[in-house]
């Protein structure tokens, strides 16, 4: 394996709140290769979004972060904010769940795109609108010239998300963090956006970190998937491997909980218990409290990574 574009080691994140320290990430390990789309899945509150935002340093003021986030060998967590700002947009960009909220309602599409283009100086002065139209065409929006004069509320959700993608790609980043990019869209539009992301990934050698809770999205749009639970990655491997033969008890339970069409009628499987709260200290495996196979060692010692291509962090698979 080549050196990954993005490598996250032991990323820990906690928030100082009035009630004490709340831990959001308990040591995330993750790697994303160039030109590969990696899905980051997990239940609500397991730290998916915070992992994505940590990469860009877009965290709330009360956040405390440790570990390493290496982009091409540069530790983003150690960078001063001015240097980090240069990386945002030009090397790493992000798109969000609700494109309607991510566009400023008082400016036209053309104005917003040109502002980003001008900021990153990716076109000749005065030619920003041409570049903007070109980007809109690249995200498969028809009649880009006319679109430039439109305001966000005049566009459909799918078009808004395409505009966001165009904006994110304007300075040709190497990594795109997509935080639930299709969650607020219709199912048919979801598929189109995912196809577009896949096309861009191949054409631009773009690395994508696709944050989602939807297994169908993972299956359709990623080559690798990392399963996050309570602020830790518990399993990481090729998408078809992880979804086809899940190794970690949490991944197995998560997949078993998906409703299926056809076949035998059976009650939906829920995972007993709930995700540990942020203020709970965890000695061993983060999933031990809900795991059907939990052993004594699971409660006392954090599991080590085992397996090279298809990694799992679980005592059932000794390294």
């Amino acid at each position: 394996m080549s050196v990954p574009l993005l490598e996250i080691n032991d990323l820990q994140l906690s928030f100082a709140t009035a009630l004490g320290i709340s831990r959001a990430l308990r040591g995330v390990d993750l790697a994303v290769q160039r030109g590969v789309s990696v899905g980051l899945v997990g239940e609500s509150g397991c730290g998916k979004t915070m992992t994505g935002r940590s990469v860009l340093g877009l965290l709330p003021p009360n956040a405390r972060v440790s570990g390493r986030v290496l982009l091409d060998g540069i530790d983003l967590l150690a960078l001063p904010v001015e240097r980090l700002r240069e990386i945002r947009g030009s090397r790493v960009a992000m798109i969000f769940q609700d494109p309607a909220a991510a566009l400023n309602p008082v400016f036209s599409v053309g104005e917003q795109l040109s502002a980003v283009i001008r900021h990153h100086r990716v076109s000749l002065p005065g030619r920003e609108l041409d570049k903007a139209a070109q980007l809109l065409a690249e995200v498969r929006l028809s009649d880009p010239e006319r679109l430039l004069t439109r305001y966000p509320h005049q566009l459909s959700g799918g078009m808004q998300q395409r505009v966001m993608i165009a904006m994110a790609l304007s300075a040709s980043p190497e990594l795109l963090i997509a935080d639930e990019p299709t969650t607020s869209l219709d199912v048919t539009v979801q598929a189109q956006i995912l196809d577009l992301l896949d096309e861009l990934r191949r054409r631009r050698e773009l690395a994508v970190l696709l944050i989602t809770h939807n297994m169908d999205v993972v299956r359709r749009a990623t080559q690798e998937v990392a399963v996050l639970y309570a602020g830790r990655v518990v399993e990481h491997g090729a998408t078809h491997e992880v979804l086809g033969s899940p190794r970690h008890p949490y991944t197995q339970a998560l997949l078993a909980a998906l409703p299926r069409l056809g076949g035998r009628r059976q009650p939906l499987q829920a995972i007993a218990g709930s995700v540990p709260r942020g203020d709970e200290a965890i000695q061993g495996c983060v999933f031990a409290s809900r795991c059907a196979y939990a052993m004594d060692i699971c409660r006392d010692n954090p599991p080590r990574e085992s397996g090279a291509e298809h990694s799992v962090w679980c005592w059932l698979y000794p390294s």
Partner: protein
Amino acid sequence: MISLVAIALIVLAAVFAPWLTPHEGAGGTGTPDLATAFGAPSLEHPFGTDDLGRDVFARVLFGARPSLVLGAVVVTLGMVIGTGLGAVAGFAGGWIDEIIMRFTDIILSFPALLLAILLAATLRPSLESAIVAISVTWWPWYTRLVRAQAVSIRERHYVLAARSLGASPLWVLWHHVLPNVLGPVRVQAALDLGAAILVGAALSFLGLGSQPPSPDWGRMVSDGRQYVLGGYWWLTVFPGAAIYVTALTFSFLGDGVQKASDPRARGMSS
């Protein structure tokens, strides 16, 4: 629209006052002529003449000038200072926010009119002092309005999106916060023009505005007051009506601006 036309008429009347009346006198003060003092409204003097025989119509026309200047300057100053401080406070948060807003609260804790009277009386009474005094009491309202807006805008996703694309705090302030607070500020400013003119009239009624002999609505009402019981109603009614109509017109303008400044409505019509 109608209010816009009415305001245009008022402003034009103030600007072209010398051409609208033959009784200009020195600098619009009207020509004192005791022989014609207390003349009832007539063709020659449509609003009558005052205790010194000056044409009331001319003085009402010229009196629009200090009122309009005061309203415009007070609102502009209040808007610029208040918006700047409010945007910075709301956007920066933390101790900067605390300092700016506590200072704002201190000013707001004084009754505005009393503070203005106090300041105007402390300074040498003149139109300029009145403007300064009212401005000092005016900006905090904009600071509050803008800060509240800025705090909410700071949390919007498009700010997060802009930051994810490398925008600096200053850039976000200029491109996202200011344009989005300007809508409410514009409405407030239009509504405030009338209110500022009213306060200005109140100050000059108390003798704390522009000084005689220059014409001023507030002082004309004040001066004419002693003759009302003598039946000389036109000395107070016409300048009073001028104040009333102007304030009301600007208030209508504010409503109009409010309706017109909604970006959604603007988009529909394009």
